[in-house]
């Protein structure tokens, strides 16, 4: 029976290490979630003091917090929509068509991912400064769409590359015009990839601080609020938002995955 123990360990140690790493990833979230139920002894203390639900019932208490969250969600949503649409179109072009300019376009897509956020932020600021463009909601949106596009293209393209091109031929053979083929076959099959890309876009946009900070003008997003609040004591409601976003992401991703699994085991 001794070999069994040895083998049990041999088969599972990787999983063990993986779980430890997951714990490392989850640790700050646990702290955040814990602090979201904290009534701090004073506004400069982050130590757990006393359990309370007040932070949850009174999320919008600290002035400006909810506005910032709302603005971040708005920007995140719009950026996701724009980036997903533009990026998906590009991914289709790259995955489904062979054409002369392809390598050049690939480089155009790769470069923004290869450029540090800071450089992008500063350069965009320089452009806006030169062009005397008023900074604010729209400049943030422009910036977010810009850095999300590449991630969308890569994600959707990977999905399309794994897709059987014969399905599209089959659809054409069954009287589907190119548009119908796209609408009825290609799009639904690419959907999990598109959804993943959208989720990624949203998280990138919602989370972005560096580029936003340079290009926001007088507009305050959630990360900027946190950055500012950090100077004078972070209100515990920020932890509520952090926890809630985590939970929403969890549910959202789980829901799409359940649907995907119920749907087509295509991947």
């Amino acid at each position: 029976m001794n070999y069994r123990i040895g083998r049990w360990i041999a088969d599972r140690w990787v999983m063990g290490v993986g779980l430890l790493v997951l714990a490392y990833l989850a640790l700050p979230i646990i702290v955040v979630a814990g602090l979201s139920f904290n009534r701090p002894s004073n506004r400069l203390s982050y130590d757990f003091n006393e359990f309370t639900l007040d932070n949850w019932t009174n999320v919008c208490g600290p002035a400006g917090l909810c506005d910032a969250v709302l603005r971040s969600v708005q920007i995140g949503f719009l950026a996701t929509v724009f980036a997903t649409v533009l990026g998906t179109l590009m991914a289709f072009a790259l995955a489904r068509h062979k054409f002369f300019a392809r390598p050049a376009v690939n480089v155009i897509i790769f470069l923004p991912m290869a450029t540090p956020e800071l450089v992008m932020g500063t350069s965009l600021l320089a452009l806006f400064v030169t062009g005397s463009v008023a900074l604010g909601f729209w400049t943030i949106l422009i910036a977010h769409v810009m850095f999300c596009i590449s991630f969308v293209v890569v994600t959707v393209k990977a999905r399309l590359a794994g897709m059987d091109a014969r399905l599209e031929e089959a659809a054409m053979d069954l009287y589907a015009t190119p548009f119908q083929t796209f609408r009825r076959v290609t799009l639904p099959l690419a959907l999990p990839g598109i959804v993943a890309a959208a989720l990624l876009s949203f998280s990138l946009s919602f989370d972005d601080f560096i580029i936003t900070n340079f290009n926001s003008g007088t507009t305050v997003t959630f990360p900027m609020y946190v950055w500012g609040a950090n100077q004078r004591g972070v209100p515990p409601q920020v932890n509520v938002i952090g926890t809630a976003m985590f939970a929403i992401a969890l549910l959202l991703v789980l829901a799409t995955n359940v649907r995907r699994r119920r749907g087509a085991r295509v991947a």
Partner: protein
Amino acid sequence: MPEMESTAGDLHIANVTKRFGIFTAVDDLTLTIPQGAFFALLGASGCGKTTTLRMVAGLEEPTAGQVRLGDRDITRLRPYQRPVNTVFQSYALFPHLDVFENVAFGLRRRKVRQVASQVERMLALVQLEGFTKRRPAELSGGQQQRVALARALINHPQVLLLDEPLGALDLKLRRQMQIELKRIQTEVGITFVHVTHDQEEAMTMADTVAVMNAGRIEQLGRPAEIYEYPATAFVANFLGQSNLLAGEAAGLSGGDVLVSAYEQRFAVPAVRARADQGPVFLGVRPEKLALVADGAAVPAGHQSVAGVVTDSSYVGVSTQYLVRTGWGTELAVFAPNSGTAAPLALGARVTAHWDPRHAFILRREPGEGDRTTPVLDEPDAVGAVS
């Protein structure tokens, strides 16, 4: 029966050539497939069968030539504009749609009404009534195959193209699907163009068989016709096996062509000779050869060759022998295990004989030697595997 009424729906492939870069996949192919026929396209891997089908379906554009349906030139129509449907080798079922929606796909695209009843009828035809709500991933291979078939058939295409639809199935399931395909074709009366690797499948199912080789049709005809009297050495050994002896034809004598080979003379009826002069192959199918221990027992009028049994393998229905002739070639002989003859021992001296009416004569390139199909335990024959 179909030939008369329906020249309007015949599929014509006229001088079609398809090149990929410098590689010619289909080479000046001309073919007419009558409406309502069950047409089988046979050939080695890579000979251009799939490419031909794709050109008919509109998924590939010919480099040259025309594809016509009756009088209509469809060469330049896009796939969705052609009354042609395909059952793909991989089925290519839409994984995100259930069985019902897969089958209904073509109807919906053409905005046909009363989809439900038609789909029900079609699913009944392929005996999948209860499966409407399942996704392709939840079906076995045979069921998927039938959905693919229903999905194509429901559109009542003028031509149905089948690209090795049974290739992925195991032997038993394959047999059952063959039966079903044939039944359905009989019921719906649509032209079937069926590509297959399996010669037995082609012969049992098709009215007409075409054997392709390197982008060209080598022979076309009814299965028995081709099998009994192949046109070329390739066909003789692609469709079943043949013993082909290198000889020289010495012209006609009466109704027979005379062939001399290995110091023996053979006569073959002129109607079964593709040439009557010059280098030829004298061909006999292994099952047309009979073995007798005693040369004197050769029936009158039969021709014979003497040899030694070098191998025998039992395959249930028959026993396959190899008989080495005096000049070293090994002939294949299939003896049916009908229980009438005792098995022969290795090393036994035998005489293989045949009725001249079962032999045939084919053209041969000068210098080519005997050709017999590789048989088990015959390592020398493997050189050509690629």
